[in-house]
């Protein structure tokens, strides 16, 4: 037991004597949260729209104005000629083209219906989907407006009888930052766990001190605890710093229990520390450890539901995410912070994470040898 204390003392001395370490602990979470949460924003504004108004009627002009006034679209081009507008789309100067055909107003009044053509540049599928969605909402609003006006003139010519309205629970303003910040915190904690711990052990291999430790009667379990515990504490500290930044800068809600969240983070960190340890057992240099950690990190992050919803992945990929510890943490942190979920809602995830921690550390410890 005393051995562990000497090991911990040594590790902390080395960690805090390392000039890169303090910035990593303090600056990294702040910068990462500030930059990424603004950058990873799915809301798209100022998409370029080309409007081809072949009707030039009061209604067609009103629709065009409404489009531009929404704030989502910027009028990039306007003409009577559809072919010219397609050219704008092809040369990337426009993201979408709206063609209002001739007799738009006449058909709308006479036949009670009319059509509009929307052409969206779908190279970026997400952007295209959003452009389409926004445009549809605006056209719908336009439709409702004119029908309300008609209704005022003639009660028999009324608007549709029902309308679907949405209410966004848990994140009413559909604020992406509230959604992203907890997820980015997960990435931060993951990096501390998997990168720093693994690199630290491999560094001892690189400089040769591991051999000296291996000829001492130091117990394998003591060595491992001495190596991982400092990074466990740093990871939790990082979590606290990140949560504070989230609260102060982005005002993310803390609906659930922070204690529960830290408990989960604590278990999750052991999984990642175990991964770092495992990587350190079969690498010889910090560079190798870095590359392998990076490989896992990219897969874990992309398949975590952090940036893209898991529901939109194909079935086999969805099954793969079940083996991704990051996925569970992203889910739990969002549930606890944004929905206020309690033990009853997240206990299953706790169970899974404990299994992960046991499995990962068992493999890592078995793989770690005191012999060369």
């Amino acid at each position, binding site marked *: 037991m005393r051995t562990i204390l000497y090991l911990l003392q040594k590790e902390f001395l080395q960690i805090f004597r390392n000039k890169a370490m303090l910035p990593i602990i303090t600056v990294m979470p702040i910068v990462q949260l500030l930059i990424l949460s603004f950058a990873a924003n799915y809301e798209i504004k100022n998409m370029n729209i080309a409007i081809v108004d072949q009707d030039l009627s009061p209604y067609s002009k009103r629709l065009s104005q409404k489009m531009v006034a929404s704030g989502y679209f910027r009028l990039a081009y306007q003409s009577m000629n559809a072919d010219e507008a397609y050219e704008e789309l092809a040369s990337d100067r426009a993201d979408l083209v709206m063609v209002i055909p001739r007799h738009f107003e006449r058909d709308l009044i006479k036949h009670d219906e009319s059509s509009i053509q929307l052409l969206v540049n779908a190279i970026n599928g997400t952007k295209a989907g959003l452009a389409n969605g926004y445009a549809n909402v605006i056209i719908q609003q336009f439709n409702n407006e004119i029908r309300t006006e008609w209704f005022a003139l003639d009660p028999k010519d009324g608007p549709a009888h029902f309308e679907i309205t949405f209410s966004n629970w848990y994140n009413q303003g559909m604020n992406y930052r509230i959604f992203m910040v907890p997820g980015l915190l997960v990435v931060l904690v993951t990096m501390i766990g998997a990168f720093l711990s693994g690199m630290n052990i491999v560094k001892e291999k690189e400089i040769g001190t591991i*051999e*000296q430790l291996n000829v001492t009667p130091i117990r394998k379990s003591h060595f491992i605890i001495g190596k991982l515990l400092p990074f466990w504490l740093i990871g939790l500290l990082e979590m606290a710093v990140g949560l504070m930044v989230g609260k102060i800068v982005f005002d993310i809600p803390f609906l659930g229990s922070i204690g529960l969240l830290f408990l989960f983070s604590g278990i999750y960190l052991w999984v990642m520390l175990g991964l770092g340890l495992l990587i350190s057992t079969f690498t010889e240099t910090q560079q190798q450890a870095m590359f392998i950690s990076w490989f896992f990190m990219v897969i874990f992050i992309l398949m975590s539901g952090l940036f893209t919803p898991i529901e939109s992945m194909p079935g086999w990929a969805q099954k793969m995410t079940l083996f991704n510890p990051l996925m569970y943490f992203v889910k739990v942190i969002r549930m606890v912070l944004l929905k206020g979920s309690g033990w009853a809602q997240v206990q299953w995830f706790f169970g899974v994470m404990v299994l992960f921690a046991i499995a990962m550390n068992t493999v890592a410890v078995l793989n770690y040898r005191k*012999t*060369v």
Partner: protein
Amino acid sequence: MEAAYAITTDGLTKKFGDFIATNNITFQVKKGEIFGFLGANGAGKTTAMRMLCGLLKPSSGKATVAGYDVYTQTESIKLNIGYMSQRFSLYEDLTVSENIRFYGGIYGLTRSAIKTATAELLAKLALEKEAKSLVGSLPLGWKQKLSFSIAIIHNPAIVFLDEPTGGVDPITRRQFWDLIYEAAHAGVTVFVTTHYMDEAEYCDRVSIMVDGKIKALDTPAALKTTFGAATMNDVFLKLAREANQ
């Protein structure tokens, strides 16, 4: 028999695939002896030493260190030996006294024992002024002396030294050997590899390894007589030349 010898080996062999690094070596090291373990680069010295320290499992043969078996009692061996590897093994980003405290601590010395040992060690090496300097800032010769002193901080029965004086100037080497003599005087068995033949002369007994086998083992004086050579250097060259033919 066990009591008289610090190290015994019998047919100790290590194979890496088809390559036999250490081939069937048999020797005994007496307690309190300074045993020189010589050989050209790649002769298998480090492999043999690592097996004796419990860092490497032998392929076959028997060996005991401080009375413990190298297959089954490696952790007991580790409690009773000190080891100084070819590569510098102190932490350069810790100070002199932090290194002493750390190694003392993991060998189970009490806090007060560490304090006394630190004071003695610093006085012996005249490093009192450097106690709070980072080890990385010390000259190589000082580092090596410090390294040796830390390797025996827990008063082991045997200390293994793997080319401890590599790259060190002659004066510091002389001082280093004074430390070795001092330790041997206190009853520590010293098992040392070296490439400096003048150092071989300082040993009580010397073995010379060629291509994984022990080709000669005796006192330096007896070896010189047997091979009709004036110095240990000539003995070594004769044996090594044989191997090349």
